[in-house]
């Protein structure tokens, strides 16, 4: 069915469920087209496995256009593979060479337990958002959208932080499995906007507390997260979050 001419060896992490141990399993693939996406290459593998009567590899994916943040493969030692600024679903086989061996593992972190094969549980991110990653405004309470002019550079900076897709590559690659880039992106987005001010110091404290509770590691500023983030979320956000956190703890009188 495929039309290309690449031959590959895959070493894929197979793990039955969260309780069992996993291991890398070798698969050979031939006639892979360089125009295929990495996930389409996995489709080919799965079709083969099904036809052979074996269990296909479970992996997370949905939009396949780099925006939902669901795909999550640790490819040859890097989250989302070797190319900068792309997600796994947007990685194409032309980034590899004929004859390559490709090792594929799930995200690994205590806070992201493996569910099966390459799929992990990232619900910790949802809980962090639920702890404070919002503006408390009920539906119907809003004033006219243009009543509050926001300088373009501020709006743009907030947008850049808001571009995070919640994929977790930052955690996956960080030697400490720290979630600081993800958390700081949300904290920053709202800290940069006037709408976020009333809850600014409350928010940063609750979100950091939740992040710690989930068992992510501590940031040591290695910068790996920024380098691997498919959306180019900047380390500046982490500094901004730290700043807000200290202001919240040392200056604000509100106990959270």
């Amino acid at each position, binding site marked *: 069915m495929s039309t290309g001419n690449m031959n590959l060896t895959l070493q894929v992490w197979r793990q039955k469920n969260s309780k069992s141990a996993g291991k890398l399993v070798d698969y050979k693939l031939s006639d892979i087209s360089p125009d295929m996406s990495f996930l389409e290459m996995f489709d080919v593998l799965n079709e083969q496995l*099904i036809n052979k009567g074996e269990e296909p590899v479970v992996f*997370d994916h949905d*939009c396949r*256009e780099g925006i939902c*943040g669901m795909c999550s493969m640790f490819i040859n030692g890097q989250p989302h593979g070797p190319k900068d600024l792309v997600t796994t679903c947007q990685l194409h086989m032309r980034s590899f060479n004929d004859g390559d061996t490709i090792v594929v593992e799930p995200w690994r972190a205590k806070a992201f337990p493996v569910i099966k094969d390459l799929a992990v549980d990232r*619900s910790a991110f*949802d809980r962090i958002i*639920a702890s404070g990653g919002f*503006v408390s405004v009920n539906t119907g*309470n809003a004033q006219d959208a243009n009543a509050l002019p926001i300088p373009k550079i501020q709006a743009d900076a907030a947008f850049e932080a808001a571009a995070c897709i919640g994929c977790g590559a930052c955690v996956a690659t960080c030697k400490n499995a720290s979630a600081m880039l993800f958390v700081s992106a949300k904290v920053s987005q709202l800290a940069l906007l006037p709408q976020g001010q009333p809850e600014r110091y409350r928010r940063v404290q609750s979100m950091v507390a939740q992040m710690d509770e989930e068992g992510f590691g501590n940031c040591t500023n290695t910068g790996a997260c920024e380098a691997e983030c498919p959306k180019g979320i900047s380390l500046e956000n982490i500094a901004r979050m730290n700043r807000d956190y200290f202001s919240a703890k040392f200056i604000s009188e509100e106990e959270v």
Partner: protein
Amino acid sequence: MSKLNSNIPAGELTQKWTKYKSSVPLVNPANKRSLEVIVVGSGLAGASAAATLAEMGYKVKCFCFQDSPRRAHSIAAQGGINAAKNYQNDGDSTYRLFYDTIKGGDYRAREANVHRLAEVSANIIDQCVAQGVPLAREYGGLLDNRSFGGTQVQRTFYAAGQTGQQLLLGAYSALERQVGMGKVQMYTRHEMLDVVVIDGKARGIIARNLITGELERHFGHAVVLGTGGYGNVFYLSTNAMGSNVTAAWKVHKKGAFFANPCYTQIHPTCIPVSGDHQSKLTLMSESLRNDGRIWVPKKKDDTRKASDIPEDERDYYLERRYPAFGNLVPRDVASRAAKERCDAGYGVGASKLAVYLDFKANTERYGRIEASKAGNHNPDKETCMRLGTAVIKEKYGNLFDMYAQITGENPYETPMRIYPAVHYTMGGVWVDYDLMTTIPGLYCTGEANFSDHGANRLGASALMQGLADGYFVLPYTIGSYLSKEIATKPIPTDHPAFVEAENEVKATIDKFLSINGTKSVDHFHKRLGHIMWEKCGMARNKEGLTQAIQEIQDLRREFWADVKVPGSADEFNPELEKAHRVADFIELGELMCKDALNREESCGGHFREEHQTEEGEAKRDDENYAYVAAWEYKGVSEFELHKEELIYENIKVAQRNYK
């Protein structure tokens, strides 16, 4: 007498919603706390509804099949969201948005619903901005707008090419806020596989925990579906891999009518198919048509590079055929025009199934403006292109990157190659003015309902509709039903109806796993997609549709005899999930063809080759087909048609004209 009552409030069009709101029965706060609502779906429609209902005090359970509500496919919407704000002072108004939507939908939508949509559109923008959604702004700090197809005003709000993402993250944060407060219980990685109907009313759902495989019963005083569109019936579409019709189809089989299934939107600007391995298609936002000009060579089978084809040998066919709207004609018109050119042999690229979308002229124009801003009033071409490229990058950078990533070509240098692809489904579960289906207590919102878009949706109006439904419409209208349910105690889930529904689901799952045939689920999905695209796609005719119905019926039988679903029921098993979805797509496909066959006219996204003008434009038949076709499920391959007449009291129905 038709069984359909659209429950449109009496009174003058512009007053209907206002009057409705002030007279709809209310539920007092204490009672709200004991009323439970199930919301299936966490996209714009589902998340906004779940959050708002919880804010109002209802007990809400929300379901999605992804690992987080933030990943619903609304996240992928690129271009923007419409609202009648008239911030640009270009003559926009509620009426104009209403009018454009009805006209864009080729006069096949309900006036009252569309007017309400236009009325609440402005509130959506206010709400989202208040949530911290970073919509694009101008230097003065005010919100920016762009124009979209099918309109002559600039009313589209956007956040670069990630509008859906930003709006969804806003709704998601509102939802998570309620989750944090314990007012919404979120069930991620859960798939609804049936609705439970007790004494004629929707009272709950059966959902499968996708990780453990366990079947769960959930009670609700009312059930809301916001489960998205079914474009994946075509296998290849711009939808997400998991987008499906299952929830909508299951309720259809339990008594909810399915309306206008054949209305499919084929989006004109998608990245062309590159090979058999293709698993999905990627949209290049319609906003690109603001600055991109569409053309093909004037010469047939021209194999020269785009840049080698001189200006006078290019056919800017949209500008030629539709001078008034040019490249910004509605989607259905643009798609068919592209198909027409390619079918006639003028297509470009290796497959010849593509046309060019060229940014050169506008890049240069922007460059000139930038240069003159910088005081250079006579810039050379190179300067213009350099400065202009920066402007284009700022506007569409992420789309250009995506294009380069997928095709391996640099769109800043060569024109993009684009081709139409399935994108949106106007059809869906039939709902009345209250957004209630024909099953009392069962509501349907967002793309999943048959919606306000008639036979064709205008760009940037789906986001508007999803959020209108979820934030501003359903929370009111559901009160009308729930106010009568305050005496209903939660029904224990060991009620026979729950048991029976669960057993049915279980039997289907067991069946899938026991067939143990020879072909994968994807195999059948691809074949179905092929039939649908060829015979129920951009252009349809009687012969093809009749064949398609037969082929789909055969395919269904083959599927149930020969599909191979590996693994077991009590584990994380994506193949089993797909099997459910594809089984439902096959049944839906048949209904789509039947609906298309029934509709002996061309309108919006439904183009019957038998019904076209001499110039090849769609020809409507208002006399015989100005109705919503709502289908009732009567058994395998049996559907009964109910007609909801469409009455236009405020708009003069006319042939659409974008010339």
